[in-house]
């Protein structure tokens, strides 16, 4: 698009797509914003009226609200920590030439192919179940009392499940970064007297910084909206122990049929996501330039 004629033509040609995308984004956001200021309950749809800030006050004063925000952050941070650390470790392992490398790599990546509710159900019924889960079997083998994961450690259980699902993604991105590391640099460092730990800290980690940033940013976007795993395992309980913001909104909309309250929660979630995004970009965004 070097010349002025082609530039304006290009602008004209791509305008429909951009306008469509803009409408696609603005209309739902605008409607959500509008609903968030209405008294709008599906149990009483004729009684719809202007509510002002009531929905926000109501959502804010809900005792579950701060629990949900805390749980959301704990979920995001917990999963990020496990996937980034674990992803680096697994990537380092499967980067080594081993017999059956192709198969091993496919197996490592396969959890990503399992859809979230299915994965959560497998974990709930086959792995973490207190009477016939694998963990219970292991506990009994060692003579210990099986742990009722979803009752005793609901949020931790969900973090484990979600981390299991996202570990392949992190591994894959970090592995490709690892493979682009220059072998001669490693040899130079070896000759310079750097042991394997020093080489990891001074060469491998800085080299992977950009990939780690990508993993953190992309995962955060998806992890803020985790919902299916909670729905099929703990239903947000016990109490509010595993309720995150998304689940709280779901509860307002689908269990209490409170469209106005759910919309207000949605807007709060958008604001929270943007706050998180600002902090993230401050913290790690400089790695992307």
């Amino acid at each position, binding site marked *: 698009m070097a010349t002025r004629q082609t530039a304006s033509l290009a602008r004209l040609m791509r305008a429909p797509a951009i306008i469509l995308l803009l409408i696609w984004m603005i209309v739902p956001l605008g409607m959500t914003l509008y609903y968030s200021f209405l008294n709008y309950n599906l149990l009483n749809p004729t009684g719809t009226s202007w509510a002002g800030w009531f929905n926000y006050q109501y959502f804010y004063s809900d005792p579950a609200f701060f629990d949900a925000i805390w749980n959301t952050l704990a979920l995001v941070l917990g999963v990020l920590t496990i996937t980034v650390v674990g992803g680096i470790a697994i990537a380092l392992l499967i980067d080594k030439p081993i017999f059956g490398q192709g198969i091993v790599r496919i197996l490592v990546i396969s959890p990503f192919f399992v859809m979230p509710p299915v994965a959560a159900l497998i974990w709930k019924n086959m792995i973490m179940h207190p009477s016939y889960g694998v963990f219970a079997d292991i506990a009994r083998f060692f003579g210990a009392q099986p742990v009722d994961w979803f009752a005793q450690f609901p949020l931790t259980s969900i973090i484990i499940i979600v981390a299991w699902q996202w570990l392949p993604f992190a591994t894959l991105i970090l592995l490709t970064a690892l493979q682009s590391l*220059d072998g*001669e*640099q490693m*040899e*130079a*460092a*070896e*000759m*310079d*007297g*750097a042991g394997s730990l*020093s080489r990891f800290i*001074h*060469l491998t980690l*800085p*080299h992977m*910084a950009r990939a780690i940033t990508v993993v953190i940013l992309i995962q955060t976007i998806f992890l803020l909206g985790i919902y299916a795993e909670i729905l099929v395992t703990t239903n947000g309980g016990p109490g509010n122990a595993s309720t995150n913001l998304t689940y709280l909104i779901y509860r307002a909309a689908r269990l209490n049929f409170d469209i106005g309250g759910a919309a207000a929660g949605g807007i709060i979630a958008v604001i929270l996501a943007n706050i998180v995004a600002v902090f993230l970009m401050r913290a790690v965004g400089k790695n992307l330039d």
Partner: protein
Amino acid sequence: MGRITLENVTKRFGDVEVIPPLNLDIEDGEFVVFVGPSGCGKSTLLRLIAGLEDTSGGQILIDGNDATDTPPARRGLAMVFQSYALYPHMSVRKNIAFPMRMANVDQAEQDRRIAAAAAALNLTDYLDRRPGQLSGGQRQRVAIGRAIVREPAAFLFDEPLSNLDAALRVGMRLEISELHQRLKTTMIYVTHDQVEAMTMADKIVVLRAGHIEQVGSPMDLYRTPRNLFVAGFIGSPKMNLITGPAAADHDATTIGVRPEHIKVSATEGTWKGRIGVSEHLGSDTFFYIEDTGLSETITVRAGGEIDLHHGDTVWLTPDPTKIHRFDAQGDRIA
């Protein structure tokens, strides 16, 4: 001290023997160049000395101590790589400091050595830049700086100039030679460029398929190549290697005459021919003479101002004292 001795050093990759048992002595302070065509094992040999590859047999002695199983970091050798292998996220200063940081050299000493290396290599103004902001020649100097500060027993260079353009290569060649004059440290330099070998080396090791074909000073190799391979490899343009009756006249299977040892005349001489391509370089003129009745096209070097051109008929006279004779096995006849 940097005396390196290789005793029956062997390297196999699986069933392939890349380096058959090989013996070599490198004296302290010597500038040794390993030269040979690509795939001759010269880089592998350097990596064996560095410790980046394990030997399949034999011993590597550094200053008389067996270093065969010593890890690379403790051999006291510094290596400069073809790709420079700088650490891209560190500034020039940190790159140079890295080996000292790893060796826990104290900060004042680090600063002193960095300043000295930077001054010697003209890097003082670039110490706070990243490698990505430097030109190829500057990056190469950083790599050398990183090697110097370790004060190694010997420097290993793995084709350090092949990523530079021609003009820069000549400049860096001089700088490395000067560095050697100044430091008087053993240097082992791998290259496929025989000009680099001739200009820099105290001792050239010509390798082919892992074998040492000849070891000697540049002029030794130039004057008395031990076989046809060395004769053809050392010297630019290549030596003319003539077989057939012309060689039989000298009781040899092959005779070799360097382009600079053939006299060109428009009127008289031993072999008559016609100028094919002529390259006028100003200082020299290279003629490629055809239709001489000899086994191949003859390359001749003449003065820059000679007034002969494509298509002219000329007579060639080889200098009889500078004819190299080789037998049927390609070995030199004394």
